[in-house]
C-alpha cells in the first residue's frame, strides 16, 4: 500500500529529542537536588525544623509572659517571700491514688509538690491534684512515653516532653493545651524551667556522650536557639544565667563548661582537679561549685576567674542554696553538717550538726514579716530572711542565717521527703511514703500566724557557731 507523503515525518525524531531534553530540563528545574549526592528526602530529614503550634486563641485566654511566676532552675534555689508560722498539724492526706501510679517509687523525680498541689507522673501520663488532695485532672498519652525527669511546673502551667520529640505546655488548672512544640528529634529529659525560658536536652551522639540542647520561650514555645554537641551533664542538671544568656554544666569527666547561648559556643571551661559532686549554681554573676572532697568554689560566670575557694572539710554531694538578697549560701555535707557561708567574703559564718543525712534535701529560704523578725531578735543584716531545712530524722527547723539561731523546730510524723512551700500565712509540705505496694502522700499544712507564738523562738543549739575556717 502506498502511504501519502507526510511532510512532518522527518521532524518526528528531532521533535522527540527536543521533548526529551526539554523534559529533562524541566525535571532538573523542579528538583535541583537530583544531581546531588543527597536525596531530597534525606535533605528534608536532616534539616527538619522545630515549630510551635498554638491552639487557635479564639477560644483561649492568652497568657502574657509577664504573668509567669519566676521559678529558679534546678540547682539554683532562690528564696521566696512569705511569713513563717508555728506548730505543724496534719490537715490533709493525699491518699488513694489511682492504680496506674502504683509502680512509682518514692523517688521524688516522679512527683512534684508545691503550694498548688501535687503532680504525679509515670511513663504514660500524670495526675494533677489540688492543694486539698482532690484529683483535678489526669493526662493520658498513647503516642509516646513521657521523657525522663519530673514534670516542670509553674503556678499556671505544666511543661513536659515526650521521648518522640514533643514539648507540651498545659494549663495547670484545667489541663487544656496552651501550645505544642514539635521538635522532630528524640528528647532526653523533661524541660528545665527558667524565669523566661525552657531548656531541653535532646538526644545527641551517644558514642561521644553528647546531647543537643534547645531553648524555648516559656510563654509561647518559640524556638530561641540550640546548641549541638553539648556534653551529657552529670545528674542532668545545669545552671542558667538568664540575663547574660549563659549556661553552665558539668560533664561526666568533671569539667565545668559555660556556654554563651547567644553565640552558640562554649565561653570557657575548666577542668577541676577535684571531683565535682553536684550541680553548678549561678547567683548574680557568680558560679558556685562544690566538690566531693569538700571544697566550695566561687567563680566569675563570664570569665571563669576563680574568686575564692573554701574547704568545708567534709565531703559534699549537694548544690549550694543561695540567698542572693543577703549573700548567704547554705550547704550540707555528708558528715551531716550544715554550713552557712558568707558568699561575699568566701568564709563560713557558722556550722551546725543536723544529726540527719540532708544530702538529698533542698534548703529553702523564706522571709519573715517585719514584726516577726523584730520579735525573734533576728539580726538587722538578715533583713528578715531565714531558711528551712532538716535538723533531725523527723524534724525541720527554721534557721537565722547570721546569728545561727534556730527560730523554729517542728517534729514531723515521718521522714522528710519534700521541702516546704510557703503560703500567705504559713507553709505546707508533702511527704511521700510506701504503704504496701501503693505510693501515698501526706500533706502537712501550718496556718497559724507567727505573731501568736513569738515566745517559742529560742536561742538555737548551734554547734561550733560561729566557726571560722
Amino acid at each position, binding site marked *: 500500500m502506498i502511504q501519502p507523503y507526510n511532510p512532518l515525518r522527518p521532524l518526528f525524531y528531532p521533535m522527540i529529542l527536543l521533548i526529551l531534553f526539554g*523534559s529533562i530540563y524541566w525535571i532538573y528545574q523542579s528538583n535541583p537536588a537530583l544531581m546531588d549526592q543527597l*536525596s*531530597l528526602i534525606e535533605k*528534608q530529614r536532616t534539616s527538619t525544623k522545630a*515549630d510551635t503550634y498554638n*491552639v487557635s486563641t479564639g477560644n483561649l485566654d492568652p497568657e502574657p509572659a509577664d504573668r509567669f511566676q519566676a521559678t529558679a532552675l534546678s540547682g539554683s534555689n532562690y528564696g521566696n517571700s512569705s511569713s513563717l508560722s508555728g506548730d505543724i498539724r496534719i490537715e490533709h492526706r493525699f491518699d488513694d491514688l489511682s492504680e496506674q501510679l502504683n509502680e512509682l517509687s518514692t523517688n521524688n523525680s516522679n512527683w512534684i509538690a508545691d503550694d498548688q498541689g501535687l503532680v504525679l507522673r509515670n511513663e504514660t501520663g500524670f495526675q494533677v491534684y489540688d492543694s486539698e488532695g482532690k484529683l483535678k485532672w*489526669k493526662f493520658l498519652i498513647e503516642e509516646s512515653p513521657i521523657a525522663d525527669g519530673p514534670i516542670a511546673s509553674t503556678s499556671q502551667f505544666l511543661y513536659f516532653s515526650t521521648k518522640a520529640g514533643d514539648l507540651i505546655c498545659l494549663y495547670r488548672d484545667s489541663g487544656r493545651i496552651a501550645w505544642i512544640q514539635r521538635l522532630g528529634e528524640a528528647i532526653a529529659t523533661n524541660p528545665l524551667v527558667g524565669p523566661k525560658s525552657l531548656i531541653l536536652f535532646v538526644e545527641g551522639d551517644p558514642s561521644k556522650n553528647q546531647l543537643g540542647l534547645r531553648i524555648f520561650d516559656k510563654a509561647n514555645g518559640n524556638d530561641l536557639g540550640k546548641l549541638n554537641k553539648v556534653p551529657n551533664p552529670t545528674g542532668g542538671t545545669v545552671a542558667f544565667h538568664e540575663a547574660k544568656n549563659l549556661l553552665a554544666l558539668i560533664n561526666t569527666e568533671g569539667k565545668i563548661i559555660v556556654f554563651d547561648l547567644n553565640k552558640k559556643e562554649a565561653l570557657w571551661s575548666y577542668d577541676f582537679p577535684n571531683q565535682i559532686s553536684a550541680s553548678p549554681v549561678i547567683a548574680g554573676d557568680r558560679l558556685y561549685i562544690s566538690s566531693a572532697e569538700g571544697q566550695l568554689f566561687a567563680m566569675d560566670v563570664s570569665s571563669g576567674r576563680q574568686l575564692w575557694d573554701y574547704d568545708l572539710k567534709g565531703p559534699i554531694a549537694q548544690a549550694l542554696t543561695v540567698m542572693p538578697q543577703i549573700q548567704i549560701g547554705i550547704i550540707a555535707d555528708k558528715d551531716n553538717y550544715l554550713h552557712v557561708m558568707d558568699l561575699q567574703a568566701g568564709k563560713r559564718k557558722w556550722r551546725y550538726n543536723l544529726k540527719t543525712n540532708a544530702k538529698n534535701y533542698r534548703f529553702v529560704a523564706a522571709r519573715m514579716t517585719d514584726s516577726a523578725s523584730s520579735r525573734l531578735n533576728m539580726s538587722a543584716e538578715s533583713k528578715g530572711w531565714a531558711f528551712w531545712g532538716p535538723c533531725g530524722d523527723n524534724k525541720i527547723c527554721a534557721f537565722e542565717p547570721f546569728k545561727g539561731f534556730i527560730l523554729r523546730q517542728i517534729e514531723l510524723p515521718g521522714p522528710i521527703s519534700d521541702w516546704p512551700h510557703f503560703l500567705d500565712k504559713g507553709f505546707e509540705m508533702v511527704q511521700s511514703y510506701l504503704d504496701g505496694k501503693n505510693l501515698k502522700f501526706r500533706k502537712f499544712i501550718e496556718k497559724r500566724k507567727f505573731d501568736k507564738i513569738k515566745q517559742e523562738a529560742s536561742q538555737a543549739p548551734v554547734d561550733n557557731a560561729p566557726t571560722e575556717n
Partner: protein
Amino acid sequence: MSWLKRSLWEIDRSSSLRVLGGLLALGQILTYVYWQKSSFLFAGSEAQPLLCWNFQSQCSGTFLSAGTLSTIFTSQLILSIAAALLFFSGRLISWAWVALMISWFVQTSVYFMDASLRSNAYALVFLIGFYLLFLPNKIRMTQYTVFAYFILDALTKLNPDWLSGIGFLGQIAAPEKGLEWLAAFSVIIQMVMPFFLISRDGQRMGYGFAALFIYQVGIFFILKDPSSLSIAAILLFFIFKYFETKRLELESLYQSYEHPEPSNIWWPVVLLIFIAAQFRPPEVLPYLEVLRLEKLQSSEECQTLFFSQGDAKIEWLSTEKVLHLPQNIKCNPQANFNALKQVCAKNKNDNGFRNLTVFFLTRAISETSYRLRFSSDRFCDSSYTGSHIGGLSL
C-alpha cells in the same frame, strides 16, 4: 434521536470502539471493587462524605437506605458485566450501550457525591466514557484525550514532591537517590511516549504502547493503585485501533464508496475543555474541577494531634486508631476536619466526653517544617466550622 443513532452506528461499525466499550465496562467493574472499600456511600444513609468538591457549598449523605444503595450498586455491577460481555462479543450493541450508559451514570453520580474518590485515572475514564456514549468521532477523540492525559499528568509530576521519589518510598527496596531517578524517569516516559502512541507508524505506536502499558502495570505493582490498571486497559484500545485502521486502509483499495465521516468539530472542543480544566483559576467554571488532574497526594506529610477532653481527664489519642482516611486524602485538611467532626459526633453521647483539642499540620517534601492548617481546643463546638480551610457543616 439522530445523534444517538449515529453514535450507535459509529460504535457498531468500529471493532476498536466495541473493544473500548468493553474495556470501559471492565474499568467500571474494577472501579466498583475499589470504591466498595473506600466510598462512604456503600455504608448507607448513616455515613457522611469525608470530602466535598469545592464547587459544593455543602455536601451531605444520601437519603437512600443501605439496602436500596446496595441494590443500585449490585445492579450497576451486573450491567457493567453485561456491557463488557456484549461489547466484546460484538452483539446487541444497542443493549450494551444502554447498560454501559446506566452504569456510567451511577458511577458518575457517586463520583460527584464524594470527592474523596477523586483520582486522575477516573477523570480519564469518566471523560472517555462520555465520548463513547454521546459524542461523535470517538476514535480520534479518545486517541488525543489519552495523549493529552499523559502529558498533563506528567506536568503535575514536575514538582519536588513527586521528583523526590517519596511516592515510591517503602514500596521498592532501592536507595532514596534511586527512587528520585525512578520518579524522573517516569516523567520522561509520560512526556515522550505518548508521541509514539499516536503515531501512524506501526512500529512507533508499538513502542509507545509497550512502554506506557508496562509503565502503568509497573505503577500498579509498585504503588498498588488499581486505577493504573484502568489506564492500562484503555491503552489496549490503541492496538485494536491500529489493526482496524490497517484493515480500513486495505479495504479502501477495492471499495470505491466513501464512508460517512463523523463530525470533526467536537474532539478539539472537548480536548480544549480538558486542557483548560487544568489551568483555569479555581473560581472560573468550578464544575471543571472534576476533570482537573492532581499531583500525587501521598507525597505530602501530615500530622494530626488530637486530645480528648473528658471530665477531669485529657487523653492524647493515637491518630492511627481513630482516623482511617484513604491514602489519597490522608493529608487533605478538609477531609481531616470532617473526619474529626465525625469523631465528635460519635462521642458526643458518651458520658464524660466534653470536647477535642486538635492540631492539624502538613508539609510538602520541600518544606522543612510543618504548617498549621487548623487548630482548636473547642473543636467539637458547632461554632467551629473551620470555614477558613473549607470545612463543611455536616
